[in-house]
């Protein structure tokens, strides 16, 4: 559906994106994820036609659109702040593109009302000024305005970033529902990993203009391809060579002691699994405990490594700081990266897989 090939974007001397290849499947909810300044928005704007790449091509539905202006690309966009026109009513906002295309007024009205119904905006709300709407309603107006022109793809630029946490959760779901209802190919930009994991079919993790990994949310979480992805997604503890060596000794696993090694917080435990399994226990000392209600966060020092882990507050034993404890983990959960390559050991072929 969307192909970005060999894209390079520079602003003057600064190269924002040195080399980018991305393929998005039809109907997919595809997310560009990364910290601020990583080039994800630049990539989206290149796709939208607001930025001309200095090299490479953009294809939408098999057609080369690299030199086409934004309105000829059949892409709809929802902006970070929705960019609703403050001097117009909701109806006028949604009808704007239709009127620019010189659709018949009757057709425009029918299309506007039709799309408004589908995003659950009432007729009453259509006549309101956009400033009178709540954040969630504004978002639906922005989506309706983009979709009424029947674009082939929908681009969403951090549409939830300026909302408070509760509304963000609610609208995240609404947005995802709208997308599956319309079945439209969607490219979504966010810096919020939680959002990316919960909403996406596939995620591309950006760092300094480079895609570090493309995969399903589970792939990038459980099998982070690079050290950056491992650190950016989820929460993990860095392990020391001594810790890894001890783990090798106890379990017989052949883990490298030169590589940077990490363990996700939820993969470590203070109690052995009920069925025994392949978990091994390493002795340590509880350094601190922070109570969170649902669970407590523990810091346990073992063989020089500070292992962070979560313990459910289900009434079980809760060791206090200073007391000895055993950290249980499975060697195959260890994520390892070589510094020079920056890629996951033995998993280099997985970086930027192309479907």
């Amino acid at each position, binding site marked *: 559906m969307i192909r970005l090939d060999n894209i390079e974007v520079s602003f003057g001397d600064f190269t924002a994106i040195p080399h980018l290849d991305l393929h998005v499947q039809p109907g997919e909810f595809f997310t560009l994820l990364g910290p601020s300044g990583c080039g994800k928005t630049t990539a989206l704007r290149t796709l939208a036609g*607001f930025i001309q790449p200095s090299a490479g091509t953009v294809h939408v539905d098999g057609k080369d659109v690299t030199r086409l202006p934004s309105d000829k690309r059949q892409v709809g*966009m929802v902006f970070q*702040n929705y960019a*609703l*026109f*403050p001097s117009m009513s909701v109806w006028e906002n949604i009808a704007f593109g239709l009127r620019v295309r010189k659709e018949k007024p009757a057709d425009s009205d029918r299309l506007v009302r039709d799309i408004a119904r589908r995003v659950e905006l009432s007729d009453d709300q259509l006549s309101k000024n956009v400033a009178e709407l709540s954040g969630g309603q504004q978002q639906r107006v922005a989506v309706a305005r983009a979709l009424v022109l029947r674009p082939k793809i929908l681009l969403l630029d951090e549409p939830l970033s300026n909302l408070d946490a509760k509304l963000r959760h609610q609208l995240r779901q609404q947005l995802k529902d709208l997308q599956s209802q319309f079945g439209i190919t969607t490219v979504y930009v966010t810096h919020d990993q939680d959002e990316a994991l919960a909403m996406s079919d596939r995620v591309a993790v950006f760092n300094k203009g480079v895609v570090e990994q493309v995969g399903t949310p589970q792939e990038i979480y459980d099998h982070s391809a690079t050290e950056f992805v491992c650190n950016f997604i989820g929460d993990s503890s860095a392990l020391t060579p001594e810790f890894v060596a001890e783990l090798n000794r106890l379990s017989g696993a052949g883990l490298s002691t030169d590589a940077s090694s990490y363990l996700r917080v939820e993969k470590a435990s203070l109690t052995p699994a009920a069925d025994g399994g392949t978990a091994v226990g390493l002795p340590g000392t509880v350094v601190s405990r922070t109570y969170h209600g649902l669970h407590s966060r523990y810091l346990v020092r073992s063989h020089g490594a500070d292992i962070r882990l979560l313990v459910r507050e289900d009434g079980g034993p809760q060791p206090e700081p200073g007391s000895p404890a055993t950290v249980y983990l499975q060697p195959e959960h260890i994520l390892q990266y070589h510094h020079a390559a920056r890629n996951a050991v033995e998993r280099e072929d997985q970086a930027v897989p192309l479907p």
Partner: protein
Amino acid sequence: MSGSTARSMVRSPFVLIVGACLTWFITAFLVWPNVNVLMATFFPDGSFSGRAAEKLFSSQRAMKALGNSFLLAVALSITVNLVGIFVVLVTHYFRIRGSRILFLGYASTFIYGGIVLAAGYKFIYGDKGIVTSLLVKVFPALDPGWFSGFFAVLVVMTFATTTNHMLFVANALKGVDYQTIEAARNLGASTWTILRRIVLPMLKPTLFAVTILSFLTGLGALSAPQVLGGRDFQTITPMILTFTNSPTSRDLAALLAVILGVATILMLAVMSRLEKGGTYFSVSKVSSALEKQDITSPVANVVVHAVAYLLFAVYTLPVVLIVLYSFADGAAIQTGQLSLGSLTVDNYVRVLTQQSGLRPFVVSVVYSALAALIAVGGLLFVARLLQKYRNWVATVFEYLLHIPWILPSALLALGLIISYDHPNPLVGGAVLTGTTVILLIAFVTVKIPFTLRMLKASFASVNSSLEEAASIMGAKTLYVFRRILLPLVLPAAAAIAALNFNSLLDDYDTAIFLAHPLVQPLGLVIKANTDGAEGVEGVANTFVYTVLLMVITGVTMYLVYGRSRQKGPGSKRLPAVPPAAVPPPAVSSVSGEDSKLPAAPVR
């Protein structure tokens, strides 16, 4: 918040002293003079009389002047918007080659305006003007008096008042969220559609406001019609001046001033009504900065570039010629023929060394400096109290202090003249009319609204915890004011004083009513020179005065705005002047309405 009720104000001696001084000043100089004008108009002998109105309606001259004023006001509202919007779009919205240079050219009216600008245009395009002399040589059939009357007044005032657009409209344009423009483009809108349907509607509230300011500027115009209007085009304010000078027609002057005042109040009421009608600004929390737009049609692009540079020439030609001819000898000024050999600094030497040349300059500097210091010094305390106490007493005081903002300066001046031309107990039984003090009082009065608003804003920007911290440690009111607040507000206060000083330096509209005959400030001397009273030497002197004024204004504006802009965002100091209430330039309008602009609630 403690101490915000009216009753608690009475308990503080500091408040009582300031309040007593303020009450006296407001009564004596803001309320009483204007009540007096109303009485002189409608109750000349203690009982109601419509004689002034009858006299007015039967005076053809006065009725014509009234009509002319409204004609000028309407025409000016249109022309200023046309030129002003174009200038703003060219410098801030469209990608135009050399827009930085264009901006500097259009901004030349920031550093000279009022009587100085009117005089400058007359010396260049007037019947004996430099450009006219050259034109007559090329086209002998040309009428030497081509640049006069309604046309000339409109042209000069149009170019003099686009400063409002450069300040307020340009500022509003910067507030337009660029994402809305991108969104419109993504939906297929053309450059022209985006401008017409998205950008201009968002500027509507600001455009309304500047339109009303332009209307008021045209209505109250004084110096431009006087200098360039000729016999056929006279307006209300010059008429008020004429009638004021003869005691038998003072009631007529008063009535005209009242009409002007009522029209002004009505327009300002309309403006604040429109303001409340709704802001079109950002329904969003994050917005992105505006990027310049390309004009896609090559033909339109060429046309816009051509018009932009033509306007640039119109704006800069007077400045360039004034600077050049300020170095020219008398012969060159008379013939318009300038050669390198005729350039000297003699004019400067004469103005700066001879008593007659230097005197008006010194008079203006002394008056302006005193008025600027008194206004800022006095209002420091008042602004502080008004910012601290929010109750009905404070609100009443604040409204009263805005009287000079809603009334034309001609009305205020007339009020002072007729209230203090006999011994008055309000000022200890003294007669003020005809003394040097009355102009100082008027200068201070005129500057009150602007000074008050700016000072209040800078007090409001001081973190209130500082004050609370100081008082928790036992500091008393005055001590907190002196040691905590004053140092923080001082840079802003200095900047406001400098801007006041600037705008008073070339004042004409107030001085023409009130100046002492032997202590004439610069504005009056420049006006006299445009009448040809002092011959070529007078013209040369005016050029020198103008250049000196431009230098002073330019330096002040740079010190107030230029440097604070260069300071990085890391700077923790308060901005010299709160950016939200950008004041207009010192000498920005031909009519003297500039005292209103800063206070204009333009967002």
